[in-house]
């Protein structure tokens, strides 16, 4: 399987090129678009599936639930003198539940970012040098690069080269 790399001086031309490449039947998962600034609006064709919200909610529920259970068990197993007030109160515990739930959401977001953004991975090929104001497209898993090379050049690529 071969990999092509195309340099674009203009980020918007790169977006057009991505559309053309996908129109040629290349799956979005085989395409990487590199830039120094986010390309706005994102090409909808390359929108990756994200489970960040779900991870955040699940993490919030787990951390908040665990903390609430800990508070409940600690209060029941080692009861304090409360002057006739209930040992465990939803009102008072609610504050701790809320804060730890939010802490769980923060942890979930960070974990999802590291996973989905493929950060903190040691075995990665070096990132292609991206010209300022421009973009680089990498297309991998190709059998034949010649046809795609033409498509990229027609879309405005300054240069197209094999990257494997």
């Amino acid at each position, binding site marked *: 399987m071969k990999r092509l790399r195309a340099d674009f001086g203009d980020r918007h031309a790169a977006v057009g090129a991505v559309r053309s490449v996908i129109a040629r039947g290349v799956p979005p998962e085989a395409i*990487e*678009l*590199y*830039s*120094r*600034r*986010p*390309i706005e609006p*994102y*090409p909808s064709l*390359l*929108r*990756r599936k*994200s489970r*960040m*919200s779900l991870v*955040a909610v699940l993490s919030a529920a787990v951390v908040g639930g665990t903390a609430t259970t*800990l*508070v409940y068990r*600690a*209060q029941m197993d*080692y009861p*304090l003198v*409360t002057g006739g007030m209930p040992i465990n*109160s939803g009102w*008072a*515990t609610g*504050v*701790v539940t*809320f*804060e*730890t739930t*939010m*802490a769980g*959401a*923060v942890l979930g*977001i*960070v974990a*999802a*970012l*590291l996973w*989905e*953004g*493929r*950060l*903190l*991975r040691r075995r*990665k090929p070096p*990132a292609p040098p*991206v010209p*300022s*104001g421009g973009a680089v497209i990498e297309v991998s898993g190709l059998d034949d690069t010649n046809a795609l090379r033409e498509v990229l050049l027609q879309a405005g690529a300054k240069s197209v080269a094999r990257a494997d």
Partner: protein
Amino acid sequence: MATTGTRGGPVGHAQVCEDLVARMPGSSPRYVGAVAVCGAIVAWALFAWGYQIANGFGSTGLRRPVYWGLYIVNFVFWIGISHAGTLISAILRLTGAEWRRPVTRAAEAITVFCLMIGGLFPIIHISRPWIFYWILPYANERMLWPNFRSPLFWDLTAILTYLTGSVVYLYLPLIPDFAEMAERCTGARRRAYRWLSLGWRGSDRQWQALERAMKLMAIVILAIAVSVHSVVAYDFSMSLTPTWHNTIFPPYFVVGAIFSGIAALVVVMATLRRLMGLQEYLREVHFVNLGKLLLLMSLIWGYFTFSEHLTTWYGNLPMEMDVFQAREHGVYGALFWVMVTCNLAIPLLLLGVSKLRRISTTVVCGIAVLIGMWLERFLIVIPALSTPHLPSIWGGYAPSWIELSITAGTFAAMALLYLVFVKAVPIIAMWEYEGEATPR
């Protein structure tokens, strides 16, 4: 030579990066001098704290009936200012306000530094900091768990959560800039920036994940910020001290926090603008917009203050009226009216008239509001404790050199942290700002 726009500012990503990196302070005598002065004040404050630890609380001005003095005033004040980052960055990000771009990082940094400083005060206040860990909920050898029903424990969870969230919220938009900085540096700095960039490559996958994470964090951090100052307010309103046992306190504190946070941001921005020559980035429009927000918060603060005082006055409960009288006409009367002037009169006068709304007037209002909000915290804490239920134990409070030194030290610590920060990191997010092409 970098391309410049019609207003003299750089245009395009490359020029913006070059320009912002060039404006990061080097080791000039002025910079070193500023660090030395701030460091000396912080060192003096640490000495004062050490003196307090060695000689006990009797060396401070804290004594019956006022056990909460400047430490708690400063705690509430600094935690309040920390709301700057939340409001400016999170709200403006969620509402898509484009003018926020040059100001968000300065605001987010304020949040983190203020929380670090504010969070120190409860530790200083307990006088025996080496047993601070007793408040942590762990199965310890004493079989003594903290009281989960105590607002002080809520403080711990709220502030730790807010600090964690704020550090993440500051760090996320720094990741692409760390990668950019790694390309522009050599040696140890390059390695440090590369390590901090977590392997950022600038792929669309990463940009999308980052944007999504920042949007989610903006939502989460807003909820945390509101809860944090509510919890700080619970420290007061859960007690039966006259004028504290009050349902208006949590929203009143949140409003005050946002109010003082905007004021702090205005002052920090003006300082950065002047010292780092950021006139092309932090323009009049930014100060005017922040001025409008400041005016709005001033009006809301005035409404809350009026409601709180009217309710107390109308209730006419003897123990509350004692505090009320002391605060408005008694020994604290002058401070009360200075507070009203700083928080309401000056912003209304200078920002209420559109022709007067300029950088200079916004900065004057920002400084006035910071003074006014510090006084507000003082007037909440001290008069109520000075006039408790039993008139036989009424007393006053005069801070000693220890509290004053530590208070001065925290302001110096804030400046010192900022000096170090602007030396290490571009104060404007390079990837978010594209010069004059950025919509306003």
